[in-house]
């Protein structure tokens, strides 16, 4: 279908969002602990839930990466949410809780303090 | 408009369309050329003609370099001189230099350059040479790649004159070659044997297939009664073989010379040309009056016959069934003449001297024989005749004029002009018009059909009949005209085609015209054609049906044009020929 300049611009914007992942400067990073401990504690469904939620809400500029064991195996599943230079660590996660974090923390910018551990840290 | 150019320090004013080569010539400097043929092969490939041009990084080929105002050209520096010498040296190093037994010995443009440059040595002579390759599979043309210098003239002639592109460059680099598609034999590659490639070859890489030896054998065989017939165009050019100017009429000397070869009779193909007109003229009348296939296409040129058989087989029904004149002549000699002279036709050896290479192919066609005997036994080109006369030591230029033998030696002006484009058409019209009007018309020169325009057309009114005609010469033009006819865009009644540009006077068997003469712009075709038109003018009888010996032939033997006997002896048939056949 022949496209107008406006339509081309729209395609450009949308594709740009999809490709943002390939730039190294994301607005928000979610780092999920995926060590053996994490996986056996159920990190995998959490990760799937996060991805699903991000997808559902059409969020862009969110990086979801995995990391290994951080040494606090009893608190798994856990993940960090890093926005700007602020980092929060969510622990004892479930898929349901993970979705909540995405909605509250990332979309509404409200940290769910009852799920976090420790203070906000400088990244 | 003129421009100012400096050549070797001197200022000249020359027309702005000039090339540097033209400008140098105007300044009396003869730049060597080899591949260059004006308007035909302007490829700047050989690099013999390089000159120094101020401001140019490398040397420039003067043949294609257009002059500019203020251009400064140097032709005589060491850089130029050494470069040309090296180019020549490189060419010679890869050339089969068996000049002494080369057909072009003394007429070779590469040899001329070698003489001019006086190379001390050919350093690369001991280095590798191109893989030698000889294709002598064709009845007409022999290619010897060991002599080819890849100037590309034949490639251009085949593409632009013959309209065939049968010959083209093949391979790359040092192995680059001139050859046919898929390297098939020439006769399978769509070649029409016109021989235009031979005419432009500067060296001996392209030659006719020689019949000289077999003719000598026949002459020296006491049992053989050797009869030679000469085509009209031969007399217009044979003098060139003996240094006479282009356009010298040599009919009488030619007859005298041939007689001195030791042959038994010298006849003129013109006689058969007149015969052809009667046959073909009546064929035309028959088709016009009885709703036959039109346009009627002439059939005198064997190159053209191959063209139509290979490329336009759907138009074969339009082709006149008349054999070409020399084949008719051969058939008459081995029947009527044999009967009359009481010589066994088996002992008669008919030699046709032709300006043509395609005739060598034609004489081998199965259809062109009678009672198991070929109509014609050998075809010599004009060049081959020249070679034989020289070999015999005949002082051609000093000979008295002699006349053809009789009977079968008489001819009219109409027969003579067969040798130039438009000639067959004009000769036919002279007869047809007289028949249609029932008069002996006084106004019978048809100037509209003369001249060298690629395709000529005319609309004539004869005795109330509108006759539309067209003429094409050279394979390229012939194809254009056939495409027009096929498309139905135009309708004609009668069409003359000759396979060579200009007609037989420029046939593939005519004496070489050196590229210098061609590039001077000398219209050698016109000069040769003029010989024929002058001879036409000088004849008492100028219409074929006025030829008394032809009349006698009908009275005594053939009865009438297109009779049963005439058909048996003088007419033939054609067949579609596949090119690139799968063998």
């Amino acid at each position, binding site marked *: 279908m022949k496209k107008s300049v406006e339509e081309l611009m729209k395609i450009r914007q949308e594709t740009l969002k999809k490709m943002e992942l390939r730039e190294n400067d*994301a607005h928000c990073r979610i780092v999920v602990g995926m060590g053996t401990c994490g996986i056996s504690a159920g990190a995998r469904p959490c990760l799937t839930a996060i991805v699903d939620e991000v997808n559902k809400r059409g969020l862009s500029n969110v990086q979801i*990466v995995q990391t290994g064991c951080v040494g606090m195996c009893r608190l798994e599943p856990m993940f960090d949410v890093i926005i700007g230079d602020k980092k929060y660590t969510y622990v004892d996660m479930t898929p349901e809780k993970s979705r909540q974090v995405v909605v509250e923390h990332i979309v509404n910018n409200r940290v769910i303090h009852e799920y976090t551990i420790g203070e906000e840290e400088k990244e | 408009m003129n421009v100012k150019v400096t050549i070797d320090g001197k200022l000249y004013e020359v027309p702005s369309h000039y090339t540097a080569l033209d400008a140098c010539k105007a300044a009396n400097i003869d730049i060597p050329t080899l591949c260059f043929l004006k308007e035909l092969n302007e490829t700047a*490939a050989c690099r013999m003609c390089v000159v120094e041009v101020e401001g140019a990084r*490398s040397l420039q080929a003067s043949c294609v370099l257009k002059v500019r105002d203020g251009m400064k050209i140097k032709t005589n520096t060491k850089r130029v001189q050494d470069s040309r010498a090296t180019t020549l040296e490189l060419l010679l190093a890869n050339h089969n230099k068996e000049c002494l037994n080369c057909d072009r010995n003394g007429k070779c443009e590469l040899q001329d350059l070698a003489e001019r440059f006086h190379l001390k040595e050919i350093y690369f002579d001991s280095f590798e040479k191109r893989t030698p390759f000889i294709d002598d599979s064709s009845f007409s043309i022999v290619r010897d790649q060991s002599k080819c210098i890849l100037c590309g003239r034949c490639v251009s002639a085949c593409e632009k004159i013959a309209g065939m592109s049968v010959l083209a460059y093949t391979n790359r680099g040092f192995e680059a070659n001139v050859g046919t598609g898929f390297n098939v034999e020439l006769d399978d590659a769509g070649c029409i044997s016109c021989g235009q490639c031979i005419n432009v070859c500067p060296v001996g890489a392209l030659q006719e297939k020689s019949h000289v030896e077999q003719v000598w054998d026949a002459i020296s065989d006491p049992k053989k009664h050797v009869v030679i017939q000469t085509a009209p165009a031969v007399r217009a050019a044979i003098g060139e073989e003996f240094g006479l100017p282009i356009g010298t009429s040599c009919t009488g000397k030619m007859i005298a010379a041939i007689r001195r070869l030791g042959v038994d009779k010298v006849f003129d193909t013109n006689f058969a040309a007149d015969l052809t007109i009667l046959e073909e003229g009546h064929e035309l009348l028959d088709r016009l009056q009885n709703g036959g296939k039109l346009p009627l296409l002439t059939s005198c040129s064997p190159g053209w016959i191959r063209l139509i058989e290979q490329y336009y087989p759907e138009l074969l029904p339009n082709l006149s069934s008349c054999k070409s004149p020399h084949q008719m002549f051969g058939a008459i000699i081995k029947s009527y003449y044999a009967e009359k002279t009481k010589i066994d036709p088996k002992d008669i050896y008919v030699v046709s001297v032709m300006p043509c290479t395609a005739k060598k192919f034609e004489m081998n066609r199965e259809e062109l024989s009678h009672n198991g005997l070929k109509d014609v036994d050998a075809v010599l080109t004009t060049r081959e005749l020249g070679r034989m006369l020289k070999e015999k030591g005949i002082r051609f230029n000093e000979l008295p004029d002699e006349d053809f033998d009789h009977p079968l030696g008489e001819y009219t002006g109409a027969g003579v002009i067969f040798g130039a484009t438009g000639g067959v058409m004009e000769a036919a019209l002279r007869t047809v018009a007289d028949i249609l009007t029932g008069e002996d018309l006084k106004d019978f020169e048809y100037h509209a059909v003369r001249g060298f325009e690629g395709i000529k057309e005319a609309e004539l009114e004869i005795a109330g009949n509108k006759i539309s005609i067209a003429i094409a010469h050279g394979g390229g033009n012939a194809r254009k005209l056939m495409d027009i006819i096929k498309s139905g865009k135009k309708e004609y009644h009668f069409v003359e085609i000759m396979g060579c540009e200009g007609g037989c006077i420029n046939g593939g068997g005519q004496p070489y015209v050196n590229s210098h003469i061609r590039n001077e712009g000398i219209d050698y075709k016109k000069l040769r054609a003029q010989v024929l038109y002058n001879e036409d003018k000088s004849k008492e009888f100028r219409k074929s049906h006025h030829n008394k010996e032809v009349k006698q032939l009908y009275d005594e033997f053939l009865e009438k044009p297109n009779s049963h006997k005439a058909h048996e002896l003088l007419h033939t048939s054609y067949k579609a020929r596949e090119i690139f056949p799968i063998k």
Partner: protein
Amino acid sequence: MQYYRAHVLICGGTGCTSGKSLEIKAELEKQLVTYGIENEVKVVMTGCFGLCEAGPIMVVYPEGTFYAHVQVKDVKKIVEEHLFKGRIVKEKLYYEALDEDKVISVNEVEFYAKQKRIALSNCGVIDPENIDEYLAKDGYQALIKVLTDMKPREVIEEIKKSGLRGRGGAGFPTGLKWEFASNYEDDMKYVCCNADEGDPGAFMDRSILEGTPHSVIEAMTIAGYATGSKKGYIYIRAEYPIAVKRLEIAIKQAKDYGLLGNNILDTKFSFDIEIRLGAGAFVCGEETALIESIEGKRGMPRTKPPFPAEKGIWGKPTLINNVETFANIPAIILKGGEWFGSIGTEKSKGTKVFALGGKIKNTGLVEIPMGTTLREVIYGIGGGIPDNKKFKAVQTGGPSGGCLTAEHLDTPIDYDNLVSIGSMMGSGGMIVMDEDTCMVDIARFFLDFTCEESCGKCTPCREGTKRLKEILDKIVAGNGTIEDLDRLENLAGYIKDNALCNLGQTAPNPVISTLKFFRDEYMAHVVDKKCPTSVCKDLLQYTITDKCIGCGSCAKVCPQGCIEPLGKEINSKTKRRQYVIDQNKCIKCGACLEACPPKVKAIIRK
């Protein structure tokens, strides 16, 4: 919009494809399904990443993890460890992407960090078969700009201002070329993209077409607008099947979006592009031979003038630019000629893509600003010469270029500098030679190429290059004379001066430059009958010294059976004798040298 938490980019360039990157992609997709993460991870096949030495290449975002030499069998592990569990598979990382224990992202690797990518900017970044990704990377913005608010004349002015010069070899100012083509009036004009990349080892054009085909299509359309042409041809060799396929896809996509065809973006301007496949003759990269080939004739150069701008395809005014030249156009239009002109040297603006090859660690494609020194390219980006060998020479400009030596290493690379030191930019081939390279042999190697690729039209190139090569053959066979050397030099100069086209005129360059800088090597071959680098077999001799212990290992492996114990007696009791090589039968294969026990080392090669 589907969100993916990771993008895996796999190189789909010709190099990596022949390294089975298609199979790797298939395996990856299969494994993602096995691990149930196919909806979380996106797989993208891109164009060439440039660092072909490391191929097949796989890059995982968002981390920018740079995996090198990936094989099908590695895929499962990468999926399980990295994509599923989040642990980078360190042993598959590109060697420079791992510093101590720290993983370095692809963009920070020295090979990439030191480059400046304009023509290659999208290569290895976008999916070349997806026009949307090109659009996202500012694609077709330049065309929109040109069609909506620039006059053809202004476009040409912008190109002229940029100082862009032809990237195909000769370096003719592109803006001027456009201007010439636009000045000739005719009912039909053509824009032609020369994608007949022929220099051995050079593949930037292929990579651009494989990695960002839309860049070239956009640029040609802009050129069509600027010069008043409505038809474009891309002449590409059939042996670039991936590039051809991507071009076909790209042209179709551009047509679908109305970016090619009639009334582009609802303006009066119409433009269409046709692909013409070449059979791969080197000479068809020469613009007039290319035109002949497009017209269906044998690819042989025509004489110039008339230049293609006046009489090109079908005798009509034609603008011909090379792929890389075109690939620079959209950026120039978008960012301005001045921006482009600010990069590079005084007379050579912008960047140039080089194909690094030969004796160098990081073989591949690099795009650098003009003016970068050879040293920077070879030792910086290129990673230097393997095995700590000494640098000897670098051949720039492909087979028609020349050899440069160590003294030129600090020369800033641009068109004019390269010509002034006896070489040329050419299409950007850069072949590095180390101390083990014989320069006579190298000259012969290049000559062999030009000799074979000569179209055969003009005498100097057809006959002359062959004779040059034959003289070189004589010299490396030990049969050369001083006269041959003189002949070689004269003939080389003659060909340069007399050949019809640029291919012929530059064919002797390798001979001329090696004679200039390495004459002593020629002399060694001719006078001493020695090859200083022991490359030329015929000049080598294997001999057995006194160290021989008579073990016979050499004789056992000799394929000629020309080693026999005929030397002096070693042991009077056993009558053991030293072995001797029959020099007349020796084929110099070197098997004996290998077979001689390392402790003995009795065989020497000189």
